[in-house]
């Protein structure tokens, strides 16, 4: 299913798609430059390996090029591309049979977003080091399946509504919400357990 939700720049994208359909493959380049970072991030947050994420980014653009005739003109090219990328990443993990384990050194944070996340003064979490945060997040993400991670990855990209994520992954909106609920809950529990253990060790 292709999303019909509009995104900024959709009109320019459609013009480029028309050019590709007319046989000018070079029109893919501006689309690549525009979306490569976002597609790469989406792939990375599913597979948690830089080289694999770059390969998957390449694969996503090539798949889009090969299937360009199936792209519906009224839908968003970006959303369609993300759908291809996230599904390729899920397939990759399944094909590899790689466990869902995420290593803490593969966790990278956007510093501005991290600072905002640590802000709530109601918890003692603002004192935790980034490395420790990475460990906790890796621990929580390791508990997620490929499908759960795909929801998390698209959610973290911030561009999509639950409805769009559901359309991209071909599942009901409620499933998207429950998968996200699960991811948040896992991390909430990890944070709580970490802080309580720290407090107990200080008290003892």
């Amino acid at each position, binding site marked *: 299913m292709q999303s019909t939700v509009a995104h900024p720049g959709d009109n320019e994208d459609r013009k480029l798609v028309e050019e590709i359909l007319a046989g000018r493959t070079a029109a893919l*380049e501006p689309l690549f430059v525009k979306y*490569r970072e976002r597609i790469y991030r989406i792939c990375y947050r599913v597979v948690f390996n830089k080289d694999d994420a*770059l390969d998957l980014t390449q694969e996503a653009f090539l798949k889009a090029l090969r299937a360009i005739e199936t792209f519906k003109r009224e839908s968003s090219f970006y959303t369609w591309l993300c759908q291809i990328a996230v599904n390729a990443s899920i397939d990759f993990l399944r094909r590899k049979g790689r466990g869902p384990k995420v290593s803490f050194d593969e966790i990278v*944070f956007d510093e501005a977003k991290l600072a905002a*996340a640590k802000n709530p003064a109601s*918890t003692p979490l603002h004192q935790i080091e980034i490395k420790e945060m990475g460990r906790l*997040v890796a621990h929580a993400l390791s508990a997620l399946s490929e499908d759960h991670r795909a929801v998390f990855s698209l959610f*973290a990209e911030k561009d999509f509504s639950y409805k769009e994520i559901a359309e991209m992954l071909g599942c009901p909106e409620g499933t998207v919400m429950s998968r996200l609920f699960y991811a948040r809950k896992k991390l*909430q529990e990890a944070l*709580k357990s970490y802080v309580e253990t720290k407090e107990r060790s200080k008290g003892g």
Partner: protein
Amino acid sequence: MKPCDDNQDLMMRRLDGALNLVEQSTLDAHLRECPRCTRDCGYLLVADGLLRAVDAPKVSAEEWAVVETEIAKAAGAEDDLRVAAGATEPPPVSREEWDGVWQGIEREALLGKREEKKTIDIRTLRKRAVWQYGVAIAAAAVVVLGIYLVVGMMHPRAPKPTIAADEVQVGKGYAYTTIKTESAESIYVIAQINNIEYVSASTKGGFMYSTENNVMEIAPKSALTGPGGGPVEVPPKP
């Protein structure tokens, strides 16, 4: 006041901005009175923020250039194929050539069917494999037996001593038997009397020893040691 578990759900939905005014005020009222939920809410906010903050390692311009080149290469190759398909007229094909093509298809189709049958009929294949293994194992057994017989002929072994059942005399506190053996090696008999093990030795020929429960074993001298590793103690003859 709503139970804490219900408020977990409200907290989660508040992160998505999905609460109506009534739900929002219900949650706020609960949080004012419940320190545990206030704390949990804090953890949840941080968890949500952290998940949103997960990024990917930076990719250098050089790395992007490699990816772009790969895409361009693949896309260019596809372009070339499209151009070739659209712009060139294939040479004419004769009737004989088409017949050859059709025969090839037919052959492929038949082969395909055979392959398919092989795949489906995997149990027959497995049975055949088991049968083949059986023959191989039997042949190997024959070879091993032959080697064993040849070696046996070259190094004849002493016949195993036997106790003839009809020669065992069991009486109160003892049992008696004659061991028939042609071995030159000394024969030892282990007998258990009241669960205490006794050992006695004899050269070839007749031998007797007593036992209450009639458990008797025969062993070569080298296998026997007495208590503490010393020589075996020979109990008196009854």
